[in-house]
């Protein structure tokens, strides 16, 4: 069993070494990267099947027994996050064939991309909190490299803000780990679940919990801590910002969900109450920030912030249904958001800019792209019958159930404002005529370019539609996953063996 858990981490590292050695040989690196992602997809699918069959699975690295060694563990949430990571990775790897120029390819784009995937998968699969820190770092250093690769002025500028603020959050995370270890004497998450009950000074535990909340909050880009995101996500090539938009903040959300369902549940009135306020403010500030922007990718960046609010909302309400909504939202959002960034890249390729006032005419010249944009855009806003509708529906229903009417109202209003931003993009980029004559049609791009750019978009849009039309199995899955989160007995038993 243990190789299944380690495979999603080892495979990308092997691919990274290979593509690094073979960089600068035309498209060899790109195809190898795609091959690596395909293998990774098989591995993660096998992991998913194993978790569905056997429940939570765990493996001790180096054969050190549970609370002492490093544990890899996969429950349904981890498994689905790994699967969705590899799907996004595959889509972006195909897109990168056309989007990444030779210069960036030679500098090692594909190698960094694979290391990023390894870091993200590692963060989802680890069952040890210090190991989580290490995977965060692997992910961060790869993302630093990807962000500034190529060295455009805007990239360096955005990179400085991204790097500095993320490093501060890392240090906070590290201090939190130190203090938590001092309180409990263990680093294993399942063991922590048991050990935090024995802590005499529960108030101190809450302080540590807030430290973690701030550290993960920076990564997840929640309300007062999100400024690095809209400052940097629109600067790198689309094949970089799409994978960032899909995956990186979601690792922060995952870490929050994991820690605040497994470990820090001692004072949920305070911690989850705080998270609730943060979630609502994140939703509102994100969507208002987006309304003020006029750049395709900046609008999308602010919408990441706004959507993160919904996921945190699911965690903060802390009812079974709300967690179902949070898990569903995570999966839906990664697909949709990565797709929207990929589409923004095609729009730029056709019209020459990300600046909405400088582009237009896409509906007339490439109606297919217009349809492909509408699917994730409407899904993001929560139109039935697309995936976003069900995600929002679950969360709003969960907040109505516990009579949090203000929260439900905020969620609905933010959905409405999301439509406003999406219609702005629609009206500017697609409907109005191109200010400088006509935009070239999709067909002008050339067949191989077109295939590399469009295939991932069609694939991800198809997934959105499928989740939207047949939500039942996905909701049922999210329900099982939320059940595991709320009652971590299985998780603890799988990691610690026979212990209660």
């Amino acid at each position, binding site marked *: 069993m243990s190789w299944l858990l380690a495979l999603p981490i080892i495979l990308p590292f092997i691919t990274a070494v290979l593509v690094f050695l073979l960089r600068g040989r035309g498209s060899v690196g790109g195809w190898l990267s795609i091959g690596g992602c395909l293998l990774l997809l098989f591995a993660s699918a096998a992991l998913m099947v194993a978790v569905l069959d056997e429940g939570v699975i765990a493996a001790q690295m180096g054969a050190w027994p549970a609370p002492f060694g490093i544990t890899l563990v996969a429950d349904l949430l981890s498994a689905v996050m790994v699967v969705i990571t590899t799907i996004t990775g595959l889509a972006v790897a195909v897109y990168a064939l056309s989007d990444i120029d030779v210069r960036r390819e030679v500098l090692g784009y594909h190698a960094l991309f694979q290391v990023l995937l390894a870091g993200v998968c590692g963060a989802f699969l680890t069952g040890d909190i210090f190991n989580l820190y290490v995977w965060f770092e692997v992910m961060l250093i790869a993302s630093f490299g990807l962000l500034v690769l190529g060295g455009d*002025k805007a990239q360096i500028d955005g990179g400085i803000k991204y790097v500095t603020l993320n490093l501060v959050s890392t240090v906070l995370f*590290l201090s939190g780990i*130190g203090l938590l270890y001092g309180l409990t004497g263990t680093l294993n998450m399942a063991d922590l679940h048991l050990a935090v009950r024995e802590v005499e000074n529960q108030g101190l535990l809450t302080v540590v919990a807030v430290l973690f909340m701030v550290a993960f909050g920076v990564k997840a880009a929640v309300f007062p801590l999100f400024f690095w995101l809209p400052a940097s996500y629109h600067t790198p*090539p689309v094949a970089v910002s799409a994978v960032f938009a899909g995956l990186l903040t979601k690792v922060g959300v995952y870490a929050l969900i994991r820690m605040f369902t497994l470990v820090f549940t001692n004072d949920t009135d305070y911690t989850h109450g705080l998270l609730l306020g943060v979630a609502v403010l994140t939703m509102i500030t994100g969507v208002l920030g987006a309304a003020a922007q006029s750049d395709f990718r900046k609008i999308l960046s602010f919408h990441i912030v706004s959507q993160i609010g919904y996921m945190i909302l699911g965690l903060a309400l802390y009812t079974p249904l709300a967690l179902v909504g949070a898990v569903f939202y995570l999966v839906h959002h990664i697909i949709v958001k990565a797709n929207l960034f990929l589409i923004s890249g095609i729009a730029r390729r056709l019209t020459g800019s990300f*600046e909405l006032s400088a582009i237009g005419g896409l509906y007339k010249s490439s109606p297919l792209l217009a349809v492909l944009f509408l699917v994730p855009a409407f899904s993001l806003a929560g139109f039935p019958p697309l995936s976003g509708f069900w995600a929002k529906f679950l969360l709003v229903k969960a907040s109505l159930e516990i009579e949090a009417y203000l929260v439900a109202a905020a969620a609905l209003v933010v959905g409405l404002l999301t439509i406003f931003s999406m219609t702005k993009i629609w009206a500017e980029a697609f409907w109005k005529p191109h200010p400088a004559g006509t935009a070239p049609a999709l067909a002008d791009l050339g067949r191989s370019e077109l295939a590399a750019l469009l295939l991932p978009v069609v694939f991800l849009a198809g997934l959105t539609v499928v989740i939207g039309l047949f939500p039942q199995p996905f909701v049922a899955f999210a329900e099982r996953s939320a059940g595991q989160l709320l009652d971590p007995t299985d998780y603890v038993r799988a990691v610690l063996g026979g212990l209660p």
Partner: protein
Amino acid sequence: MESVLALLIGVMVAASVYLMLARNVLRFLFGLVLLSNAANLTIFTAGRLTPAAPPLVPEGMAGPVGVVANALPQALVLTAIVIGFGLFAFALVLVYRGYQSLGTLDSDAMRHAEPKLTAPDAASAKPKGEAS
């Protein structure tokens, strides 16, 4: 001993926050180094400071004999130092590169990614996104 170290950590964090509030990015980085070292000291102190024997397992035994020092925090700190060093080296080079290409270390003057809007139509005047 713990309280002395706790005070030291407090002073380090205060100094690092002061440095990080500066507009100069280089000062910010120095603050960051100080902060990460404060975090390392936190882990070290949280693992309890005891005047115990080194955690060595005598030959032929399965575990150490008697009271030994906790070796885990030191392993954690060692890992954290290595990672922190790597990240700091990267950040330093990035800031140097930023100074070369942006011509400033003042974070308020770094407006290439988010240009100031002076007039309502300023956004359309200069399309960005040099990335391809």
